[in-house]
């Protein structure tokens, strides 16, 4: 225990639920959630000024660099309120991203109230709105707060009116704070005590606690974060995971305040952590219910869902000999990421790699970045694709996660995943947004004016249409003002075809794509054109064809190289020329052979990356 607690408050396991307030902060990236959390830690005395570091709760480097929270944390804040009584405020930090909607929903389910934090200079954003709706569905108490009111660009009246309109309260009920200066933070903590209801549960019932997060720690194994609903969990008890029935010894329970602090037990309404010694987060799944192994609860809390990968991409080591490292790295990453799935695959073009499934694009990007940064791997990733369910003529069904495996014929129907997207933007961009969504096969489901200048558009869109460059396009059409959120919303059947790209007659599996029939030609032309620019001329003419089945829909030609000779090679040129030759030989080794065509690795990377810049919804 590194820190002394200045305000200790009631002990875990022996806290009257009436004194507990469980709440989270719903906010958009950059709207100051982490700074506000930091200020709360300071104000309640759990972190001393001198050890405060910016965004204390965001542990991972990537999180700090990106200013976002991937993994939620829960911190116990003892608080002496205005009414003179001691309270325990459990601040549950929600993961702030679109890919993690389910994790967000579980974090919200652990709370009775939410602070809706909005930048007073920017107003509410799509993702915030989506999470707000989730909170409202859970019947949570919402405390609307405008942050950054110290900024010169702040427009508190305007955005207070907008917030009041969105949640249906009076503008003067919207609190105003500056997380940076600390202004209004105390009033906010008092509002949490006053407005958020205390947790309700049966102390004598069999234990039931909901897992809202689990993280892998190198030293302790899996650390599971729970909210106890009924009964209590004590150290040295044997517990059971209700979705699998697996049982474990409870080696330690405790609370985070702000460092892990062991306790004897966690009781009704309390939030804390469990350590059982398991090494894989899959043993401790978000949404699952923990009970005691003996005299356990009969029914789980409900709401549990298996994580379901939505976006797939092939990950290949740039250097084929790194394949074992990639495998080991994925195995390690998996320990801390229950949603990551992968299986080996090989590509004629890219060699050996893995087909990986992700919750979404950000998840993909984070995994890729961690593999490169933490494990030092250089990777090629294929263009992200979604998972298709294909009904065959003979009545069988196929699940396709790799476009190159999409059947060429005898297809009765193809089903693709659909998302429900929420877009918030200044009203002047409504036309541009509608045009974009229409071009991506979107269906308008509804539209609301949040204020005179800001509009909320709700679209149903095929997920495949937003895994490409949708967010970039949205941003550029709205000068960066639009924000986007989406959540899975079932599937639809669609007229989808596989477009293959053939190089000198040989299909290049890495470039196959499943696209809507109406867009096949455009994809074929674009890809063939791009490859013509990227692949160097060979000693023979190389046709590049885009084809649906055996039907060629677009064609480009790389003309044969006619001259590949240095004009001069005299006495003083020989050493230089030999060294150039040696270098070219090395370069040749890094070429990938597609049939007889030498394709530089860079061409693959460029062809796969430019058009497939993952959307970065904010």
């Amino acid at each position, binding site marked *: 225990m590194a820190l002394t607690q200045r305000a200790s408050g009631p002990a875990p396991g022996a806290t009257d639920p009436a004194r507990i307030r469980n709440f989270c902060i719903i906010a958009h990236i950059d709207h100051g959630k982490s700074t506000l959390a930091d200020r709360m830690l300071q104000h309640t005395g759990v972190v001393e000024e001198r050890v405060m570091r910016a965004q204390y709760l965001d542990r991972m480097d990537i999180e700090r660099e990106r200013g976002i929270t991937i993994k939620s944390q829960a911190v116990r804040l003892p608080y002496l309120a205005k009414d003179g009584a001691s309270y325990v405020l459990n601040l549950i930090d929600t993961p702030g991203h679109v890919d993690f909607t389910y994790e967000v929903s579980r974090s919200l389910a652990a709370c009775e109230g939410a602070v809706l934090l909005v930048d007073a200079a920017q107003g509410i954003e799509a993702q915030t709105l989506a999470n707000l709706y989730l909170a409202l569905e859970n019947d949570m108490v919402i405390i609307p707060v405008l942050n950054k009111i110290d900024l010169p660009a702040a427009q508190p009246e305007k955005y207070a009116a907008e917030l009041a309109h969105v949640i249906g309260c009076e503008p003067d009920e919207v609190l105003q704070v500056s997380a940076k200066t600390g202004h209004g933070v105390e009033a906010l903590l008092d509002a949490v005590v006053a407005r958020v209801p205390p947790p309700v549960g049966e102390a004598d019932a069999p234990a039931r606690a909901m897992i809202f997060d689990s993280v892998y720690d190198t030293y302790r194994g899996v650390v599971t974060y729970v909210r106890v609903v009924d009964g209590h969990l004590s150290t040295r008890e044997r517990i059971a995971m209700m979705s699998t029935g697996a049982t474990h010894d409870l080696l330690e329970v405790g609370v985070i305040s702000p460092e892990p602090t062991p306790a004897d037990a966690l009781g009704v309404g309390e939030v804390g952590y469990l350590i059982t010694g398991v090494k894989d987060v899959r043993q401790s799944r978000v949404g699952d219910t923990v009970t005691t192994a003996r005299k356990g609860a009969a029914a789980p809390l409900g709401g549990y869902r298996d994580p379901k990968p939505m976006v797939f991409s092939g990950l290949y080591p740039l250097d084929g000999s790194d394949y074992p490292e990639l495998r080991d790295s994925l195995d390690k990453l998996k320990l801390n990421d229950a949603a990551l799935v992968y299986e080996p695959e090989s590509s004629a073009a890219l060699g050996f790699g893995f087909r990986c499934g992700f919750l979404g694009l950000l998840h993909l990007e984070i995994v890729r970045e961690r593999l490169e940064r933490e494990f030092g791997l250089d990777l090629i990733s294929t263009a992200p694709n979604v998972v298709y369910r294909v009904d065959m003529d003979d009545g069988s069904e196929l699940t396709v996660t790799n476009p190159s495996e999409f059947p060429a014929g005898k297809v009765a129907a193809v089903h693709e995943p659909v998302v429900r997207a929420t877009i918030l933007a200044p009203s002047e961009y409504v036309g541009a947004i509608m045009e974009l969504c229409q071009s991506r096969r979107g269906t308008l489901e509804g539209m609301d004016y949040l204020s005179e200048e800001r509009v909320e558009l709700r679209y149903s869109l095929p997920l495949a249409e937003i895994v490409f460059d949708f967010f970039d396009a949205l941003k550029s059409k709205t000068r960066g003002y639009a924000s986007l959120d989406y959540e899975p919303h079932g599937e639809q059947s669609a007229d989808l075809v596989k477009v293959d790209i053939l190089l000198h007659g040989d299909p290049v599996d890495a470039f196959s794509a499943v696209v809507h029939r109406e867009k096949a030609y455009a994809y074929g032309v674009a890809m063939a054109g791009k490859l013509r620019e990227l692949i160097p001329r060979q*000693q023979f003419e190389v046709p590049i064809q885009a084809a649906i089945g055996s039907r060629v829909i677009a064609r480009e030609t790389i003309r044969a*190289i006619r*001259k*590949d*000779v240095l*004009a001069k090679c005299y006495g*003083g040129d020989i*050493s230089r020329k030999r060294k150039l*030759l040696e270098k070219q030989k090395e370069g040749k080794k890094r070429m990938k052979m597609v049939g007889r065509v030498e394709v530089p690795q860079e061409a693959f990377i460029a062809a796969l990356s430019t058009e497939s810049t993952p959307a970065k919804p904010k």
Partner: protein
Amino acid sequence: MSQTGGVPSTPPAGEPVPADGSLPEGTAVGERPFSMYLHVPYCRTRCGYCDFNTYTATELGGGASQASYAAQAVAEIRFARRVLGAVDLPVRTVFVGGGTPTLLPAADLAAMLAAVREEFGLAPGAEVTTEANPDSVDPAALAALREAGFTRISFGMQSSAPHVLAVLERTHTPGRALAAVGEARAAGFAHVSLDLIYGTPGEREVDFAASLADAVGSGVDHVSAYALIVEEGTRLAARIRRGELAPPDDDVAADRYLQAEAALTAAGYDWYEVSNWARPGGACRHNLAYWHSADWWGIGPGAHSHVGGVRWWNVRHPAAYGQRLAAGASPAQAREVLSAEQRRVEDVMLRLRLADGVPRGLLRPAGRVALDDAVARGLAVPAGVDRVALTLRGRLLADAVTRDAVD
């Protein structure tokens, strides 16, 4: 102005050379024919495309001068003799390149040649070539060179088209090169060569046709034709980068090459190396010595040498060069001692460029397969006794064939 001079812009990386210039123990000296290259690192002006180790008076700075150059070169010739020891090394060929050798008085070139004779001796029938700028020769100088023992002269003509010469920033007028050929023949030079450059921005097919016709019409027995290379750091490169000139196009260069082959073959010249054509007896024996991996000592700043598998190159600046020699030290900047495999690779690389072709004996199994494949694809043909030579199409892809053949 040099086209064939041995001193390109960028020296390779290498290992240090001892101050006394001594060769590594065991270096075979005198086992191969011996030649000398004499570099003259001066030009009146620098041409826009040139990246050779050459200096104009204004670029030179202190510590070096054209006037004292011949003496420095002679000093290195004597130094070479000391390093190579008492081995009998009659010089088969001498080549004076630059720069612009004829910027020096004929007497200076004569003095340098005399030193070669004195230290090494010339083999009977030795070929002695100098490069020359059409601008910097006159009948008297040509006569003096002939008198001194020069047997061959190579003029940088480049083109007959004034607008092409202008892009290249050549100072001579189109007619001057042809007149110089006449003067050289009148002075008694039996072997005269012209250099042409094709693919210059703005050059049309008819321009190159005229250049070829003029070269052939002049009666020379040797023509070199080079695709323009845009070297980094030249004014030409800067102008292309700024968009003032179009970059040379490889397909155009390929067409021009075929044009050169057709015109020169029709006029009785045969190719004997990728960029060189000669009438019978007109091939440059000095350059053939490079391509057959003969031994040679390169005299002068930046000059490259090769003796028995050791390649070295001199410091590039004339002032530094002069200082080293004045101190009795080797002017070499660095060297590389080639492994047997590196020598083999060089041999394959160089021989493939020759009409005689590469002996199969130089190839490893993978290289043989690669060359058989090149034959199957029409890039090469079996030639002579167990050799393979490039076809016309293969010549244009010589580097690609080489990359596979050295396996």
